[in-house]
């Protein structure tokens, strides 16, 4: 049985109560909106990229504890990193959010323990997969970031 404590880890509640990197960035920072029509969660993401590095990131918007803490945790994890590292973190996180049913088998875990360690605080969101309807909440910020990088690239 999925337990509430798997979902609402203390780190998550902390980032929900005190979100990091909240706010806006002026141009030339790139602005991207993310929206989850099912629950109405909204995110506005500002990304400042220079020389292949995500110099700064800020977020506004509203939503549930999972979507808000996930965007806060994300911002802390990717800020200042090279775009390659950012893209890898996005990929690792999205693998973490793959529902257990889709995992090929026990010995081929979607996310290795090594990767989990690499995720650091982000690993607190691992419990979300036990609540499949909430996965969209957790990935909203990440999809928005991926979209922002694509737009900056283009």
């Amino acid at each position, binding site marked *: 049985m999925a337990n509430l404590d798997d979902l609402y880890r203390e780190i998550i509640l902390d980032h929900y109560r005190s979100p990091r990197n909240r706010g806006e960035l002026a141009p030339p920072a790139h602005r991207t909106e993310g929206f989850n029509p099912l629950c109405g*969660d909204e995110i506005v993401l500002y990304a400042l990229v220079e020389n292949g590095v995500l110099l700064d990131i800020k977020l506004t918007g509203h939503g549930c504890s999972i979507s808000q803490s996930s965007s806060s945790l994300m911002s802390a994890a990717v800020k200042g990193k090279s775009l390659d590292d950012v893209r890898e973190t996005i990929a690792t996180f999205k693998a973490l959010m793959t529902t257990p049913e889709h995992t090929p088998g026990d010995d081929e875990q979607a996310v290795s323990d090594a990767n989990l360690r690499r995720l650091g605080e982000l690993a607190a969101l691992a419990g979300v997969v036990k609540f499949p309807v909430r996965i969209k909440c957790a990935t909203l910020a990440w999809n928005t970031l991926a979209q922002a990088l694509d737009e900056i690239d283009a």
Partner: protein
Amino acid sequence: MRFDPKLVRGDVPLLNRVINGRPITYLDSGASSLTPRPVIEAMDRYYQHHHANVHRGVYQTANEATAIYEGAREATARFLNAPGGSPEIVFTKNATESFNLLARSWGATFLGPGDVVLVSEMEHHANIVPWFQLRETHGVEVRFIPVGDDFRLDLSRVEEAMAGVKLVSVTAMSNVLGTINPVRALADLAHAHGALIAIDGAQSVAHLRTDLVDLDVDFLAFSAHKMLGPTGLGVFWAREELLRAMPPFLGGGGMIKDVSTDGFTPATGPSKFEAGTPPIAQAAGFAAALRYLDGLGMDNVAAHEHDLTVDALTRLATTFDGRVRVIGPDNGVERGGVISLDVEGVHPHDVAQVLDQFGVCVRPGHHCAKPLMKRFGLAATARASFGPYSLTSDTDVLLEALTHAVEMFA
């Protein structure tokens, strides 16, 4: 005489579910009601003994299926006290289709540029989007009656908004606020201005007595699944002379009088609006739901849910030190058993998630009423809503779980 809700409970198999180790506390009847055994059994009986396509059959089961389907139409007309009887009852797939039928058949025929459809800020999207679509195709204006800070429509604001209005289309009971609108007064006002009036009965028909002769409205839409009936069946009611003047909506079998390679002539009566094989088994289930509700008595259902609501509002107001706000009229105002909650510091999604751990079913979200949400500066609420099988002990568990949610996010 009031019914015993414990007996109703015994008729609803789903209430035996255990969720996360606790007996289910179902507080989402506003979204869809639970299904009593007699309703399920009526559909089983239909499939096991009487199923056949309706109309045009000659053999016995086809006649039985037709009698069941048309019998449901008659039962619906009786339940609503429809002035023109069963020829006024059109079966659709849900309340939403009923509104689309109204907009595309009546609206597209009788409305055009300069004409206004007056809805309210508290409408469900089912009574908003079809009018926006009609605006696109036929240039009508869609005007919104504002909702007051008391969560009610102000009749004087309706009066002053009536210029150019050809149709007033409002909900009889808000699915978010619980507000009960003064349908008869609105009907009189609309008619005094030469307008017609459509009522969204999705919530009201399930929880209050509906008497179409008393209400004096022109159109009504609602769904079976919110009133102990099955999914897949809606009702559109209109005065017979209006139905007669309306062109068909969907085209196909059953709604025609004649078809050649040159064109078609539509059927008369409600069949004109029922293209294709209708929801026959669902009509059988719906008739059983109406019988069940008649057995309880709609006045008793309303009184029972009223008592539950008064009790819940009182306890919500005293338990949480102002941290749980009810988005809707307070006690003392006539209202339905829909209670939208705004919990300080806890997103409705999280409220519902924590409540689920206690087996409590409430719905978070905008409840398909985004303009209303915006009006009150909210993205969502967590909504609890009662049905005939609800008990004060459901409210006990709700409060227990809410207390946990509030503490957890404190």
